[in-house]
């Protein structure tokens, strides 16, 4: 009851001076908007990272030839001697490996009757789809038999389909890849943008049996038969990724006859690790915004305190009257405290709508799902109300401690 009365008169006081109220709220508005954008970026980026890790699998390791820093210089993946299908089999036979596939990839032009499109062609073994967490949305995957015999069949990604077959109905059609005719047997479920976080489209791909891609698209290696450009494998759930990494490294050192003390001529890449590192950069940005939010809330709070002091002075007579008719100091305190909190909460609501726009914009730029959870809204509003409470207290207490006679005589 008392609070309702106080908020009604507080609201009237704010409305009676709209421009002043708005200007006072500005700091709070900016602060709350920053809080919202900051938290939304944090949540969105985390959700995106989690989704990426989930889509590739957190237990996926990739073996690349070459690589690893040597004398401060990165040799780059693929610069060393390639792996072979025998290496893939050796890894697949390890007890802690759930599935493994060799991958051979290259750029190629795909031509359909409706269009042509430069895309990435991947050759993979039968486990390629399981390892890369691909599912089919239409048609079928190639069989073990087709994989082994190198049949001229391919499964294509959603983006490639839309470029080659704008009108749909791709399954069963024939396309040419580098003038080799192949049949489309399935379409992959879309995974979305930025697979490796490099802005590349994972759905722009054509996957065929490894030997077919080697023989007809990429071409063989002059020195190494049945070569693959990299090996991907999944570590069984519950098995430590780091020790799996060590054991595979040892196996490859043996197989590639690397003398003890000599550096590896291959590298093992943990996809989940890299994604997490990118997340750390996002955290730095979040911290920066948190700082902005804190500063503008502080400045906003001082503004609120200032305007509340002005308001107390302006309404000294009114305070005197209220005291004369029986308001206790506590009643006056609550009235002005409610006014300050209301001012800040109102600013908080405006800030939240701006923050929502900011969060939306950030989500567009960062290409992550827009996320404004109840926690974010609660934090933003809570921050605003707390500022009102903290910075409104001093002016409110000053009003509550006025001498009734002095206040009544004030003009």
């Amino acid at each position, binding site marked *: 009851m008392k609070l309702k009365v106080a908020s009604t008169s507080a609201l009237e006081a704010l409305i009676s001076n709209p421009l002043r109220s708005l200007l006072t709220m500005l700091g709070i508005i900016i602060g709350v908007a920053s809080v919202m954008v900051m938290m939304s970026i944090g949540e969105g980026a985390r959700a995106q990272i989690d989704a990426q890790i989930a889509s590739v699998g957190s237990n996926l390791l990739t073996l690349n030839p070459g690589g690893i820093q040597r004398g401060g210089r990165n040799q780059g993946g693929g610069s060393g001697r390639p792996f072979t299908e025998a290496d893939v089999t050796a890894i697949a036979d390890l007890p802690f490996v759930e599935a493994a596939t060799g991958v051979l990839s290259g750029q190629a032009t795909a031509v359909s009757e409706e269009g042509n499109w430069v895309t990435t062609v991947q050759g993979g073994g039968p486990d390629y789809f399981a390892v890369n967490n691909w599912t089919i949305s239409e048609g079928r995957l190639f069989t073990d038999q087709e994989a082994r015999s190198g049949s001229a069949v391919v499964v294509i990604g959603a983006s490639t389909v839309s470029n080659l077959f704008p009108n749909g109905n791709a399954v069963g059609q024939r396309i040419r890849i580098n003038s080799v005719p192949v049949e489309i047997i399935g379409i992959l479920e879309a995974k979305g943008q930025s697979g490796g976080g490099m802005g590349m489209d994972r759905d722009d791909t054509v996957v065929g049996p490894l030997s077919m891609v080697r023989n007809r698209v990429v071409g063989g290696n002059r020195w190494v038969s049945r070569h693959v450009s990299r090996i991907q494998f999944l570590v069984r759930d519950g098995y430590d990724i780091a020790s799996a990494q060590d054991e595979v490294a040892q196996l490859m050192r043996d197989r590639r006859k690397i003398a003890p003390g000599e550096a590896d001529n291959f590298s093992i890449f943990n996809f989940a690790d890299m994604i997490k590192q990118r997340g750390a950069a996002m955290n730095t940005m979040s911290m920066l915004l948190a700082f902005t939010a804190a500063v503008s809330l502080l400045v906003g709070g001082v503004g609120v305190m200032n305007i509340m002091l002005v308001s107390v002075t302006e309404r000294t007579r009114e305070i005197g009257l*209220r005291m004369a008719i029986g308001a206790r100091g506590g009643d006056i305190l609550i009235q002005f405290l409610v006014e300050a909190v209301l001012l800040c909460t109102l600013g908080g609501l405006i800030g939240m709508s701006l923050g929502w726009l900011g969060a939306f914009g950030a989500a567009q730029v960062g290409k992550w799902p827009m996320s404004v959870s109840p926690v974010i809204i609660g934090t933003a509003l809570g921050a605003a109300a707390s500022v009102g409470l903290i910075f409104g207290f001093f002016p409110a207490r000053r009003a509550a401690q006025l001498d009734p006679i002095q206040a009544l005589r004030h003009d």
Partner: protein
Amino acid sequence: MNMSSEPSGDLPIISCRDLSKVYRMGDQEVRALNNVSLDIWPGEFVAIMGPSGSGKSSLMNLIGALDRPTSGEMWIKGRELSAMNRDELADLRNETLGFVFQQFNLLSRQDALSNVKLPLRYARREIRDLDARARECLEMVGLGNRMDHRPMQLSGGQQQRVAIARALVNRPSILLADEPTGALDSRTTAEIMQLLVQLSKQGITIVLVTHEADVAAYASRQIHFRDGDIESDSASQRTNLLSEQSS
């Protein structure tokens, strides 16, 4: 209730003993009240008169529990005020006293009804149906048809009626009016004073501060102040008269 101005067998409703109020203005001490003793009885309509600086407003502030005396004691309805803290004084003002000011002191953003309801909002005890009580009081002062008007839409006399309704809404025992007609013309003054006389007849104790003799004439007892002390008191003169007659 005894409506006459003569001391009844009851205790005085307001009682002052040796009240002094000293203000400090720079190096100078201003003695606004100088050992004033005064009893006001239930139902009396008292006018306190005197030139400005005579101490009448200081006394009014003390009776209104808005200020504390420098020395002396003060009872309202048998309660000693110096023993009370700020909150208790606020509650006393809310429950026992009603204030009417020269400048009306209405909240300009709120209509008549809300203004009248204001003291009820600060009441510590539960009051049911605030609206009905406020309406009743506005009707009592003859503004039953102006309840939704804001102060700016009312004449001076009407505003003062709203203020009187506000002072009455908590059913106080004492109504304190500080120059209630000071801002009004003579016709409106007469109307407001008639209203106060009417309220006095209903038993409420009224203490009025004024410097106009014709306004004071409405009261049943006149007390003149000069230089912080009582110069004359019509009640004591009458008491003296009575005692002279009886002797």
